[in-house]
């Protein structure tokens, strides 16, 4: 039995002008919604994890509608790796920074000694910064999972 990927390539599936145009129009709005979910996590359901997954899904959609090489033009592998590491580093960095400034580990009110906004405001802002870190890391990891699973690690054709 032939592998599914070879079957699909033989029949020229997925090379469709309507899908490509629709995806090109949709992707900016999906990314905007992802950013909204991350930033508005303080007031509505959502947060870093969900927003990061939505942002990652927009890049996955690009790679599905076009091919993997085209989606690498929007975000290169190097940028993706840097973003993923930076996301985890933001979270742990803020936590360690709190400890270094004299508070407890992950106690955001200690950041008040850096810039004086008031400890309660810093707790709110600290949650926001941490969510941004989570979102960045999750986005990059979802995209790299799809890249590696979809192309078998070769990063050339993809699905």
């Amino acid at each position, binding site marked *: 039995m032939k592998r599914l990927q070879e079957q699909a390539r033989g029949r020229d599936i997925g090379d469709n002008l309507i899908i490509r145009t629709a995806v090109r129009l949709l992707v900016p709005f999906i990314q905007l919604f992802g950013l909204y979910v991350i930033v508005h996590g303080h*007031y509505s359901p959502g947060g870093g994890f969900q927003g990061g997954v939505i942002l990652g899904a927009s890049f996955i959609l690009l790679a599905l509608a076009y091919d993997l090489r085209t989606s690498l033009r929007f975000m290169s592998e190097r940028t993706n790796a840097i973003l993923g590491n930076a996301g985890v580093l933001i979270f742990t960095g803020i936590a360690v920074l709190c400890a270094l400034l004299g508070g407890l580990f992950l106690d955001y009110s200690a950041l008040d000694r850096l810039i004086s906004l008031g400890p*309660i405001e810093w707790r709110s802002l600290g*949650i926001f910064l941490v969510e941004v870190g989570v979102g960045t890391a*999750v986005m990059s*990891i979802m995209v790299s999972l799809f890249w*590696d699973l979809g192309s078998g690690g070769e990063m050339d054709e993809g699905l």
Partner: protein
Amino acid sequence: MKALAFLATLATGIVLLYGTRDFAAWGDAASPASRHVSPVYIERAVKETHVPNLVTAILGDYRGYDTMFETVVIYCAGLAVVCVLRRQKT
């Protein structure tokens, strides 16, 4: 063999269903979880963190370790997939 597996599944299901009889009802204000930690969070979270969404306040602040290591676990999973699958073209 298939009948044996079905019997084992059925027995486990019956035991689990029997166990759920001790659970508190949905939204029960007198259950141990609602009497112990929830009132403290509901009273103090908005005052202490200025975040109207209690879920975000608890995940990001009170249970920060949980969220941090959740991120680290996802990061490790991504790293493992990249290490196993990624091949440089020679």
